[in-house]
């Protein structure tokens, strides 16, 4: 075993009770070995190898731009930020069902974010052809990256293949916390060189990511730490070194934002420290350095697209009344200290620039004019299927309720890498739009033939094709589709594969107000504004919900959530009783302001929202706490203990707390 929570044995039985009874009869004798629980310990101890190749899972170095000639009027600011391992907290526990039939076909039902990846792993592992492995995505009660990788499909499939019977594996909450994946803990040291007028010259970062006991996605995740900051700031010289390190702890894995919340938290906490050194307003300082539309990201050599982060910051600062509140708060010397904080964040739109990002769909019109979109969707609660309906409905001017959309099934739906990586609305949605446009063209072609009129004279309107410039009712989709089948020996269906041509940034700027109780160390977020540049909004309620939910997650990241491991390597908070997520009474009313535009390649200008919404939240809250207390706290989460132990940078700030504790 490499960590507490690692697999020991699997028992299969005819009932859950019998399986649990059998598990209780397994007697395991453990010889305890010294555990390497921190990245420092794992790097220092070269003798004890957690994995055969040693404890360093991956190293990277990114160096972009030129070192500017060091002018005299620069300051150097250094910081260190520690972000912690967290649980994804999807309310639905992990589950999957596998069946192996007499024809030698393996079928797996799983709430995954990527059926084709699971299929590949299963087929390669069991030596089956891809056509004999069918992975079906089932309704999913939240994921946040926690159901992105293959997890329990192999062991469940193995049992089913051995027994030739269906097998179901359902995890309890403790297993979800200690034996699936966690957001990795990351330590980042940043050094910046900034002119006294507030222009960033150099940004040098070094990050160490705790991979846990196995590598999984940790190398990619670690490298992703270096791909965010240059989407956000103009930096003449950017250097980022980093590594992923094995420890004897729970495996890390993909988590909402994939390295952006980690590195942006470190960056934005740092930027506040720079602003403070320069005696500049944090908003004014950032405005001087944020990217402009169509800047080139020097690390990926990609355009950031129509990046509106400056607009987000300017309009957000106005809506939040930043200037006024920033100068009013942070002065309290009593028990309750009020502070405000701001943070900016950047994220991506898909995989373009990394690997080929494509998706395939089939759209057909039935003889009654209704539509079926066959697509490999994985809706994990973000409204993906609804978004696709809205897009197709918009192109064909039809009621979205007349469209049925599939989710992913490796046997029945086209290839798609998976619904993650902020690629879904931007790329999969663009595929839906193009597919609908091709079908529309085909429909217009049929009507052109029927009416003997050029296609250019025709348009779609409310489920009909009408002749432009006339007030005739036109021909309904039902009539067109019926005729196609019955008279023209064809059907109205199209298949299309879409390749993403770009990968612009999505942006969010967030503003938090907190009240810190300096006697108890408890922090309450009392007001919150999330501003987003996610392009054109397709489904306002869902987009606002994505931001509000992201803020719930981000406040937890900033203040209370952490999968803690004790000095014996045992997870301390392995249940919801001990792992606290923010509940309704503790959530502020999160306001959402969207800066809409159509400058990029997504459908109708839409960009990603699910991940970017969660990127700057924690930093905004941390900056607000530091504003309230006059501190530079940067070790997340800011629990009451850490707040009470904070160095008293404000003289007398913690007298009350000491009395309280004493």
């Amino acid at each position, binding site marked *: 075993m490499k960590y507490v929570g690692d697999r020991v044995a699997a028992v299969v039985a005819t009932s859950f009770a019998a399986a649990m009874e059998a598990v209780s009869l397994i007697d395991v004798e453990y010889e305890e070995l010294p555990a390497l629980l921190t990245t420092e310990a794992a790097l220092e101890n070269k003798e004890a190898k957690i994995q055969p190749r040693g404890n360093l899972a991956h190293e990277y170095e990114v160096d972009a731009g030129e070192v500017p000639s060091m002018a005299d009027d620069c300051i150097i600011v250094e910081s260190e930020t520690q972000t912690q391992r967290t649980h994804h*907290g999807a309310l639905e526990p992990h589950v999957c069902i596998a069946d192996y039939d007499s024809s030698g076909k393996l079928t797996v039902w799983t709430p995954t974010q990527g059926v084709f990846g699971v299929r590949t792993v299963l087929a390669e592992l069991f030596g089956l052809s891809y056509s004999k492995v069918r992975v079906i995505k089932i309704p999913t009660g939240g994921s946040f990256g926690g159901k992105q990788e293959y997890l329990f499909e192999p062991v469940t499939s193995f049992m089913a293949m051995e027994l030739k019977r269906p097998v179901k594996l359902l995890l309890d909450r403790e297993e979800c916390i200690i034996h699936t994946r966690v957001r990795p803990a990351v330590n980042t040291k940043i050094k910046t060189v900034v002119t006294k007028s507030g222009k960033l010259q150099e940004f040098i970062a070094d990050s160490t990511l705790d991979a846990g006991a196995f590598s999984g996605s940790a190398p990619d995740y670690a490298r992703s730490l270096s791909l965010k900051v240059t989407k956000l700031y103009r930096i003449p010289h950017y250097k980022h070194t980093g590594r992923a390190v094995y420890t004897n702890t729970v495996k890390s894995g993909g988590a909402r934002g994939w390295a952006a919340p980690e590195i942006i938290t470190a960056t934005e906490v740092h930027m506040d420290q720079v602003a403070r050194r320069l005696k500049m307003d944090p908003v004014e300082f950032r405005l001087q350095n944020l990217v402009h539309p169509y800047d080139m990201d020097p690390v990926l050599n990609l355009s950031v697209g129509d990046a509106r982060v400056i607009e987000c910051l300017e309009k957000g600062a106005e809506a939040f009344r930043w200037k006024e509140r920033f100068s009013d708060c942070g002065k309290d010397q009593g028990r309750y200290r009020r502070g405000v904080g701001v943070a900016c964040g950047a994220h991506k739109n898909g995989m373009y620039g990394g690997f080929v990002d494509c998706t395939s769909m089939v759209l057909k019109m039935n003889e009654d004019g209704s539509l079926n979109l066959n697509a490999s969707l994985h809706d994990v609660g973000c409204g993906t299927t609804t978004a696709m309906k809205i897009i197709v409905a918009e192109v064909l001017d039809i009621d979205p309720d007349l469209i049925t959309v599939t989710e992913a099934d490796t046997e029945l739906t086209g290839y798609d890498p998976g619904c993650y990586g902020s690629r879904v609305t931007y790329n999969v949605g663009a595929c839906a739009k193009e597919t609908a446009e091709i079908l529309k063209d085909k429909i217009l072609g049929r009507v052109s033939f029927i009416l003997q009129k050029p296609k250019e004279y025709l348009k779609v309107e409310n489920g009909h094709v009408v002749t432009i410039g006339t007030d005739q009712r036109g021909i309904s989709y039902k009539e067109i589709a019926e005729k196609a089948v019955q008279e023209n020996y064809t059907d109205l269906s199209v298949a299309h594969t879409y390749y993403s041509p770009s990968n612009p940034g999505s942006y969010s700027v967030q503003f938090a107000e907190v009240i810190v109780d300096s006697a108890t160390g408890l922090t309450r977020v009392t007001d919150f504004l999330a501003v987003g540049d996610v392009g054109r909004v397709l489904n306002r309620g869902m987009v606002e*919900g994505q931001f509000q*939910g992201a803020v719930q997650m981000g406040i937890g990241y900033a203040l209370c959530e952490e999968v803690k491991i004790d000095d014996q390597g045992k997870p301390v908070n392995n249940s919801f009783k001990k792992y606290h997520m923010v509940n309704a009474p503790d*959530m502020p009313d999160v306001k959402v302001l969207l800066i809409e535009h159509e400058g990029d390649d997504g459908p109708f200008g839409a960009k990603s929202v699910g991940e970017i919404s969660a990127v700057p939240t924690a930093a905004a809250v941390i900056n607000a706490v530091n504003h309230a207390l006059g501190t530079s706290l940067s070790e997340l989460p800011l629990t009451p203990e850490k707040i009470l132990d904070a160095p008293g940078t404000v003289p007398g700030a913690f007298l009350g707390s000491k009395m309280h504790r004493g």
Partner: protein
Amino acid sequence: MMLIQFKVNGKSYSIDVCPTMRLLDLLRDELGLTGTKEGCAEGECGACTVIIDGEAVNSCLVLASQVRGKEIITVEGLGEDGKLDILQQKFLEHSAVECGFCTPGMLMSAKALLMKNPHPTEEEIRLAIAGNLCRCSGYSQIVAAVKDAAKG
């Protein structure tokens, strides 16, 4: 085994239950009412909330044998004749459903609140769902939906 009689969603049942069976298992496994969800099995997440004699209760913390003679409402008991309950309707209108896993429990906590207090304040709504965790929504739209439902 012990024979108990109780009502679920207005229907009477008489069932032999094992003394260690939880109400959650009785509802899901014996009655097939899988709308009630299990998220933590320790009364922290509220996904398994049902209403017993007017009170919102975590069904993972109640033994099946404890519901003898009681009247239970599950999410399947909301709405009638294929028509959604006003709470369900308002959840849809306010985009208060994302992944949907917490939704049945949220609805039942909100329903229990409105049964007792038809015109709750926002604070009362937030307190009523304090035991229902949601990881998707940040609660704003859920609170707005309940408020709107209370208006009628």
